[in-house]
């Protein structure tokens, strides 16, 4: 857990939002765009601290809303609502297991769009909803679920390749070495 990790997560969020706007592959194939911010939030919640989670929620939410027709700031609270409880309770989560990452990714990717749409409806906006939205929600959930373990692998690789590694401490100390010889015996 260091600043490098936080910067990496923020850079990934920036790129993720950009890619979602430029690459329409999932939209053409499955009829819905997959949102990677909830998956990133899961990684941040399990591997960084509350401050990093908060920064990711604010920055990611603002970037996403700046490029969409959403009112600015609408996505911040749903992202935080997912990231904050997981970050606080992460000691009880088997975060190293890909299944746990998959499940949490699915949960986050399912909850964030629902909360965002609820806030939009509460604020009086009129989003495009229908029975097809249910399919889009399933695609987003599945996409986020698959993306989360992949992101964990990618970030671990990046951390290993670019970040400082903790020094491995050895219990051996030369000043406390006991020299034995035949006389001492």
């Amino acid at each position, binding site marked *: 857990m260091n600043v490098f990790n936080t910067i990496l997560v923020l850079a990934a969020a920036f790129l993720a939002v950009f890619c*979602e706007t430029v690459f329409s592959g999932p939209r053409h194939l499955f009829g*819905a*765009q997959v949102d990677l911010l909830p998956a990133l939030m899961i990684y941040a919640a399990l591997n960084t601290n509350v401050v990093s989670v908060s920064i990711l929620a604010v920055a990611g*939410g603002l*970037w996403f809303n700046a490029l969409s027709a959403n009112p600015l700031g609408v996505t911040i609270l749903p992202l935080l609502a997912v990231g904050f409880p997981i970050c606080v309770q992460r000691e009880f989560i088997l975060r190293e297991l890909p299944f746990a990452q998959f499940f949490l990714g699915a949960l986050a990717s399912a909850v964030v769009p629902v909360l965002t749409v609820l806030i939009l409806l509460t604020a009086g906006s009129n989003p495009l909803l229908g029975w097809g939205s249910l399919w889009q929600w399933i695609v987003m959930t599945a996409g986020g679920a698959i993306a989360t373990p992949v992101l964990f692998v990618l970030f671990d690789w990046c951390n290993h390749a670019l970040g400082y590694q903790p020094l491995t401490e050895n219990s051996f100390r030369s000043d406390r070495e006991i020299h034995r010889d035949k006389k001492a015996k």
Partner: protein
Amino acid sequence: MFKRKNYFALGAVVFVTLAILSLPPRATSRLKLAIGSLFLPLFGLANTAQQLPVTAADAILSRRELIQENESLRHENQQLKFLQLQTAAIARENDQLRSAIGWQKQTPWKLKLANVVMRDPANWWRTAQIDLGSRDGLRENLPVLTNDGLIGRVSSVGLTRSQIILIGDPNCRVSARVENPTHDIGVLGAGGPLDDSLVGLSYLSSGANLKSGQNVVTSGEGGIFPPGIPIGQIVDAQQVEFGLYTEARVKLNANLGALEEVWVLFP
């Protein structure tokens, strides 16, 4: 101490969110454009990357193919020049007839070509952004179309790019006329979340004479879209609200899923 830090972070984020949400619309719009401009270098990179294969393909095109293409373009150009002469003669005649019966003179459309740089990342909106802004003379509510027909209108304008709201989004309503003997007029509204080629045409009169394949064009009512811009064709129609009015489904001429270059119309 850890808990206090948690609560402080949570409170700070909630405060920031509420502050942003309660900003006046004009300030929010400016803030949105400012944050969105952070992505401009990436959009530039993406545009360059998209152009690379085209440039590479042009470079390896044989001289023979280029000559053939040049020849066909020259032929097409001559045909278009002839067509332009005919159109100009018809326009002059139209102007004379309009002035003879005291109608207002029609002004020709001014069009500006724009590239679609991005689509809305949220699945519940149907918007896109183009690479023209206020410095190119764009303003809100200008109609946007492709060679196939109307696709939407400009919803917000930045200095170098603008957001367009596409047909099918609940916030893009278009007064449309069916090209049938009764010239039925309705309102083009929201489409389905999955299929962006079909939109609903509602508030048509209950006695509307609709048939599959009839063309739908802009009616000119509402003050935003000039009349006569093609939109699509009627797919089917049904009576709704106990026969109070008719609702039809319209298949759009333009393919909203593959927008690359669009025209902004200055009426």
